[in-house]
């Protein structure tokens, strides 16, 4: 049985490239279906996901568009530093500052120092009190275009080479703003989604702009710091959730957004703002009935979130099965459906 303590993901199970660059369709990654009622685990291919859904079910996707959020900057002494803005409020960023090259260790900045960033200048105002690895940075000039011109997608060590931004976009990506891809939905093609629509399985979209999944500091990451992310649940999405038979969240970002928008009567209402809601066994979902998600290392907060859906034994059995059957992990890897 899978044991969390001391566990390390075998390196060859890390998906180092998107499916298309591994020579397959994005909707041909594998799908593990975990049925919580029966405790059964089924192995199939992602494009067969409709076999496990019924007419009247609603898929809720995150239509946030991924930004090239690794931004080259230069300090006054001429040394390069990479900024990873995790929270953006106009020209105010809360950003990680790391070395431009792997392993991208954190770079301590100084309050008051000036940086050259993406064709403009910026002032480091200080650290965030709650998450000291994030620097509060004020850009002299605002503008998404600067970021789009200068940035590259944020990439972790298991992705050795640069991957064009379009491979980080879901096929329904619309509203720009995520620091990292809302990756649970990367396996969807429109061919699959349109096929599901024909079978009465509809789609609604919410927006949640993702922050960073890692602070490039193992000890700090292990503490599972949560911070705010911008989200928007439209009137249209709220109404669709209200009508749905089952609500299937595509990605944990969707869980976070929908569960934030639940009112005291248990109904999702249209709402936009910042959420710092933490989904965990202590805060179980009220409107989300099922979840499509990827495989991420169990030390990450992802595992804790999944335990809000699946009891620990079944989840450990699922992870053991994934390793035994060589499922691929991380944002470009295989997927699971928790029913």
């Amino acid at each position, binding site marked *: 049985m899978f044991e969390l303590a001391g566990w390390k993901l075998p390196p060859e199970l890390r998906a180092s490239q998107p499916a298309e660059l591994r020579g397959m369709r994005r909707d041909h990654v594998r799908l593990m279906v975990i049925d919580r009622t029966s405790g059964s685990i089924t192995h199939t291919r992602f494009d067969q996901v409709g076999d496990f859904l019924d007419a009247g079910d609603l898929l809720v996707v995150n239509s946030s568009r991924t930004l090239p959020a690794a931004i080259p900057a230069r300090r006054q002494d001429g040394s390069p530093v990479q900024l990873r803005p995790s929270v953006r409020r106009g020209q105010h960023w809360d950003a990680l500052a790391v070395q431009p090259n792997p392993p991208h260790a954190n770079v301590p900045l100084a309050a008051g120092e000036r940086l050259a960033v993406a064709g403009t200048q910026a002032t480091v105002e200080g650290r965030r009190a709650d998450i000291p690895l994030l620097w509060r940075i004020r850009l002299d000039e605002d503008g998404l275009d600067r970021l789009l*011109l200068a940035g590259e997608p944020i990439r972790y060590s298991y992705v050795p080479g640069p991957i064009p931004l379009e491979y980080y976009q879901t096929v329904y990506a619309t509203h720009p703003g995520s620091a990292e891809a809302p990756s649970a939905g990367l396996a969807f093609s429109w061919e699959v989604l349109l096929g599901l629509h024909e079978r009465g399985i509809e789609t609604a979209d919410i927006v949640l702009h993702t922050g960073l999944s890692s602070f490039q500091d193992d000890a700090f990451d292990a503490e599972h710091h949560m911070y705010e992310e911008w989200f928007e649940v439209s009137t249209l999405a709220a109404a669709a959730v209200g009508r749905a038979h089952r609500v299937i969240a595509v990605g944990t970002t969707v869980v976070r957004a929908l569960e934030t928008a639940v009112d005291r009567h248990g109904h999702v209402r249209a709402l936009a703002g910042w959420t710092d809601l933490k989904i965990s066994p202590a805060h179980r979902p009220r409107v989300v009935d099922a979840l499509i998600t990827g495989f991420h290392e169990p030390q990450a907060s992802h595992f804790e979130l999944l335990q809000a859906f699946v009891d620990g034994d079944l989840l450990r059995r699922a992870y053991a099965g994934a390793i035994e059957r060589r499922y691929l992990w991380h944002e470009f890897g295989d997927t699971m459906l928790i029913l």
Partner: protein
Amino acid sequence: MSALRGRVALVTGASRGLGRAVALAFAREGALLAICARGAAALEAVAAEVRAAGAAVLAIQADVRNSRDIERVVALTLEGFQRIDILVNNASELGPTPLPYLVDYPPDAFDDVLQVNVVAPFRLSQAVIRSMLTQREGVVINVSSDAAVTGYPGWGAYSVSKAALDGLTRTWAEELEGTGVRIHAVDPGDMDTAMHRAAEPEADPIDLARPEEVAEAFVRLASEPHPATRLEARSLLEVRSRV
């Protein structure tokens, strides 16, 4: 004059000729405009004209051959207006002028014509249509040519590129059936534009349509469904004048 009120339109190659005329016609009909072109000064001049017509406008200097620029165009338009209802793939490359015979055609120039006229519209359409499918509506208009269906000496690369664009349009149309997103290829006919003068300097402007007239066909196609996937702009204008 409000056939496109509140609709968000993205027009490529909007700094002159047909692209400029379409942007201005859309603006007069109440659309919100995102326009792009390679030349910043000419683009800004058109943006000022669009603004003077009372429309919100986002001018994005971009080269559609560049995938980073395609992402910029799409992301900036979506950030500015939250949606894209109409895409006009108008930016086109004629090739070297005077137009060389295929037997004399510089191979790199051939590649470049295909990049601008086929690959770029594919990439941009893909990014935009993904968003249109999410919102369940939208219209894409590709600017074609009679050179797509007829051979003319010297028009080789352009002809191939527009035939390919027609093929792309036909496949899109089949795949998008029933989704709420429609796509058309429009042959605007011979117009009095800088591109036409470069191709056929000896043509008498009196025989050529003005891009402002042809742009009305684009307004009509953007605002009302039409059964044909490929059509001539002239056919829409004739229908309109009879009404």
